């Protein structure tokens, strides 16, 4: 077996797009819309909804029909920060890592002018898949409408994914917008832009001399076509490059009123072309499969001439460059972060920690306190397991956060069970490390961000608490303390005890310590009521029991007031907490 080959699937995708018939269907609707009689005071943006057997088509068209110069004069961009208040429909595109983007002003104004039509348009979309289409600036409106739709509909099923097809539309936004969309392959997969090699409109907003540095950037997939055939590209650099390289100016393509007919003729032509052989002749004998795919594509859009024996350097460079960029994109997309692959490894690390926990339960100290006073070698291993787990979950939380609200939410629910388990198991170890350093106030000053997030997400999904079930009570010995910050509360309570007993503390300190201790009592009691705390806290050498000894002493001295009494102190003194582990403790 030789080394594995890689392929460029662009030629096949292009073929599929043509033979699927979606281009013809969309153009027909645009054609109908443009053929409608127009009133004098017609709104500049018109639309048409067409119900077809296999789909719903929404077409947009703008007035007046615009030429090259019209677009060129309207190349201004509006930034997302300006839009934030005045037109918040696209705020969902801003994420933590990519907060800013800009949209072409002319396109945006056209879209904004149909804002009140949006709910009606959306209501036309039913269970059938939807195509949103338009040519020239109508296509830009279609793109923005689709973008708006992405937030409104559930994209988790491919069946509901909208498809936006534009014909000869100018570019819509800058690199920020490109980044925001292409980060989510499903979003990017909703946009298909059809561009003829003779149409100047899609190219006017690109600087012809330096396409790579263009402020405007394309997103989605571009289907470029010439009379020889068509080709498909997804990498935004390649698209800019090829949009410029393929342009061939001609007199017949300057009349904006005829552009639509021009596209209709081309698509018709392509329909015939798909059942004909491609004419690619490879010059080099040992051309690799990926390069061969790129050459086939460049030939189809008229950049490489068939039977051309001597290729010039420019073309060779273009082939190499396109190949490199497309390959890079493929590799990038194949190596997406896939947390499910590693989840099982994480479970193994968790099993080791469980083991550790169990051992120190049997020794009567509990894993929290054992970790706090590391005395044996197995603690070193625990440090390693914990580190692996922390790295994994930090990354997971980070990924989820980077996603926009909706995508992020579904991502989170899938991992929440494992994440919660991890948080309850591992955070006590972080707390132990923190207080070992002599620091205070972990919850406000020391708590790692990913724990906060995991807890927040759980709160968002949790059902209202009910009374603990019988089996939950009986099995409390196997469960982890629900509040992963429990030990931080214990540490704070011990600090309060220390302050109260110390002669150096001020009156104010003593009063607030008393207050804190009463709060802590209530907190522990409510956890016990709900069977939400592990019975391991009652192990004789645990920090919690150390606290109790200190606190008991304080009460005995009467510092908390004469004949201080509470439900918790009663439980502790009477040792009835011993029934807790078997589920036999009822707290009124």
């Amino acid at each position, binding site marked *: *077996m030789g080394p594995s080959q890689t392929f460029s699937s662009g030629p096949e995708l292009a073929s599929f797009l043509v*033979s699927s*018939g979606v281009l013809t269907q969309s153009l027909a609707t645009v054609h109908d819309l443009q053929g409608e009689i127009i009133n004098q005071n017609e709104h500049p943006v018109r639309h048409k909804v067409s119900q077809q057997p296999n789909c719903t088509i929404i077409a947009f068209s703008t007035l007046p029909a615009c030429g090259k110069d019209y677009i060129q004069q309207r190349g201004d961009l509006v930034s997302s920060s300006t839009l934030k208040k005045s037109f918040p429909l696209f705020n969902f595109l801003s994420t933590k890592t990519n907060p800013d983007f800009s949209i072409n002003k002319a396109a945006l104004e056209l879209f904004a002018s149909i804002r009140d039509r949006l709910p009606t348009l959306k209501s036309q979309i039913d269970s059938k898949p939807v195509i949103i289409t338009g040519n020239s600036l109508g296509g830009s409106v279609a793109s923005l409408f689709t973008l708006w739709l992405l937030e409104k509909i559930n994209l988790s099923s491919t069946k509901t994914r909208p498809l936006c097809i534009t014909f000869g539309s100018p570019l819509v936004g800058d690199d920020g917008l490109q980044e925001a969309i292409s980060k989510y392959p499903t979003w990017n997969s909703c946009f298909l832009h059809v561009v003829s090699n003779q149409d100047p409109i899609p190219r006017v907003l690109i600087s012809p001399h330096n396409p790579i540095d263009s402020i405007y950037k394309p997103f989605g997939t571009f289907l470029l076509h010439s009379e020889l055939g068509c080709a498909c590209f997804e990498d935004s650099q390649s698209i800019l490059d090829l949009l410029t390289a393929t342009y061939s100016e001609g007199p017949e393509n300057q009349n904006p009123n005829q552009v639509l007919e021009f596209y209709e003729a081309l698509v018709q032509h392509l329909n015939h072309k798909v059942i004909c052989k491609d004419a690619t002749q490879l010059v080099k004998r040992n051309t690799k499969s990926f390069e061969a795919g790129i050459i086939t594509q460049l030939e189809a859009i008229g950049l490489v001439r068939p039977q051309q024996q001597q290729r010039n350097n420019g073309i060779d460079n273009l082939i190499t460059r396109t190949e490199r960029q497309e390959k890079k994109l493929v590799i990038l997309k194949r190596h997406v972060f896939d947390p499910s692959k590693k989840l099982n490894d994480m479970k193994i690390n968790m*099993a080791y920690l469980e083991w550790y926990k169990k051992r120190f339960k049997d020794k009567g100290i509990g894993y929290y306190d054992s970790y706090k006073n590391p005395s044996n070698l197995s603690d070193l291993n625990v440090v390693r397991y914990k580190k692996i787990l922390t790295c994994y979950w930090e990354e997971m939380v980070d990924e989820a956060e980077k996603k926009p609200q909706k995508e992020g939410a579904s991502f989170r629910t899938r991992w929440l069970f494992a994440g919660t388990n991890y948080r309850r198991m591992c955070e006590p170890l972080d707390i132990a490390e923190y207080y070992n350093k002599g620091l205070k106030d972990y919850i406000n000053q020391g708590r790692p961000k990913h724990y906060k997030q995991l807890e927040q997400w759980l709160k968002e999904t949790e059902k209202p608490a009910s009374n603990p079930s019988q089996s939950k009570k009986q099995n409390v010995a196997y469960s982890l303390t629900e509040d992963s910050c429990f030990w931080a509360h214990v540490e704070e309570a011990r600090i309060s005890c220390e302050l109260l007993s110390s002669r150096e503390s001020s009156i104010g300190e003593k009063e607030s310590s008393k207050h804190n201790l009463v709060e802590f009592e209530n907190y522990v009691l409510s956890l016990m009521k709900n069977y939400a705390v592990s019975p391991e806290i009652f192990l004789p050498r645990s920090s919690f029991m150390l606290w109790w000894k200190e606190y008991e002493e304080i009460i005995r001295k009467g510092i908390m007031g004469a004949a201080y009494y509470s439900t918790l102190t009663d439980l502790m003194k009477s040792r009835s907490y011993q029934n807790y582990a078997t589920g036999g403790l009822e707290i009124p």
Partner: protein
Amino acid sequence: MASLNLEENIEIDTELIKKAYSLAVKAHSKSSEKAYNVEGSRRSSDPIIFSFSGCWSENGWYDGEPFGVTEINLPLLFPSLRSIGVNENALVNKAFLQRFVDKILGNSNFDREVQKAVKENKQILFTGHSSGGSIANLATIWFLEKYLRSDSPDNYKISPSSPLCVTFGCPLTGNHIFSHTLRRENWARYFIHFVMRYDIVPRILLAPISSIKLEFQKVFEFLNAKSVNLAHASIDTFDASNFYMKVMKNASSVVSHAACNLMGNTNLLLETVSNFIPLSPYKPFGTYVFCTGNGKLVILRNPDAVLQLLFYSSQLCTEEECADIAQRSLQQHFGYENELQDSFQMLNEVYLEPLEQIPLSSDSTSSDIATINSALNDLGLSTRARLCLCAARELEKRKIGNKESIDLKKPDIERAMKFLEEDYQLNGRHRGLGCYDAFKLHETPKDFEANVKRLELAGIWDEIIEMLKRYELPDTFEGLIDWVLLGTRYRRLVEPLDIANYYRHLKNEDTKAYMIRGRPKRYRFTQRWREHADRNKIPAESSGESCFWAEVEELRIKISSQGFEPIKKEVLQLEDQVLDWINNNKLDRDVLLEKSTFKKWWEDLPREHKLTSCIKDLMVVVGRSP
């Protein structure tokens, strides 16, 4: 006597093929009298030939839109035609299946005549032209299911008792699972399909009926007339061209969609657009022999490559050719006789496989690939077509590579299982506990170690299951006896631990019973593997012994909430099964230990029930000593 060598040790006498063709064509004209014909011969070494007639009507092809397929749900006739692990039945053309079941099997003579031939130890050849070929395919599969299940020792030489199916211009018959199944059972090698370069019929089912409805009737009238009288039939060029173009355009979308996947496409636009059009589910299987039209025969087996070739070999060179090729695409459906005559004289066959050396450029002349290159040129394959063939081969290679990489994990699986089988079991016994109960209590370091092993194994098996779900392992995988056995051992050993873990963490309270919501696919799959491998000996869904503990747990919960009486039936059923499993060593006797959850469950059952229970002896006799 000349013979056509199809490699993989299959050779067929060319005279036999010619005879099969003439019988297949003859069957059409006799179809009104009989749905099939049998032809024996005086010499006992000659095979018996069953030939099937075709049919030319819309509902004889498309019974229901858009592609006329139906799920095969005939577990008695076709138990193997399903994907085992993912538990999905194959799809097959509904009209063809119905014709086979009603007209052929419904005719009691057919079964009898086949049986007679088998008894006489004659080789049987099933043949058909056009849709008669699809009937022959189904007849052959029926025969294989009945007489030659995969449990007979592998024999790569066609023995007299193994059947042969030869078709000519046969339409596609089933979907990807259909094709997968035949390769899994190692049956694909019995099927040989001859296809003329331009013959439209093998390609028709790549188009939905809605797209070709207009021309369908005329084309089929023409084909029908021609099947009866070869000379006098003609069709309007306009209709022929439209038909050809529409079929080809649909074929193009199916084939380019498939090619994107072969090439590892990463652009999700492919998925988005796929929602808008119906894509033909059909997929080829068996050995394809493409007749180039100039005496060459191009042979290949890779189903993905065959699908690509079906489209690319009948592409146009230029648009101007269209009318001419369209006529040819219909005429060639009846051109096999002459073509085979020529080809067999030259016996100029070219194997495209292992598809390793496909030259990408049509002017490749270096000597080692010149033959292949000229064959590809004879089929008119462009650079793109060649890239698609390479991609099909690449996928096959990747599948083999995946299999090799999981084979390398076998020692890891064995090691982890050995720990559970020996160390862990022994450790439990010292404490008077079976694995299940020991794991559920989770008290000793061994229990934690066992948990780590359980998770390590889960990782490996889940990876295998994922690959199977995406069909990324060779088709034969789920039939490989070593993996079936390993899977069964694994399931019996480790599933109880998963169940213990499930009920220990009360997952049944948040979700549902283990069997409903909690059972991992790695156990569902491996159970089905075994049930399929032993399908002659055991009924389906009968080897759930590894779920024993889940049933005990659920019955415990039910009895404690509803009492014994309403649950009695389920209790009796479980007891019957336990008796069977214990006697057949499918269930370890440690379930009967004094401290076992099962024993405790038993103790809580009403006394009167226990006195009459079928397992009362088991429960008493074993007592304390394991």
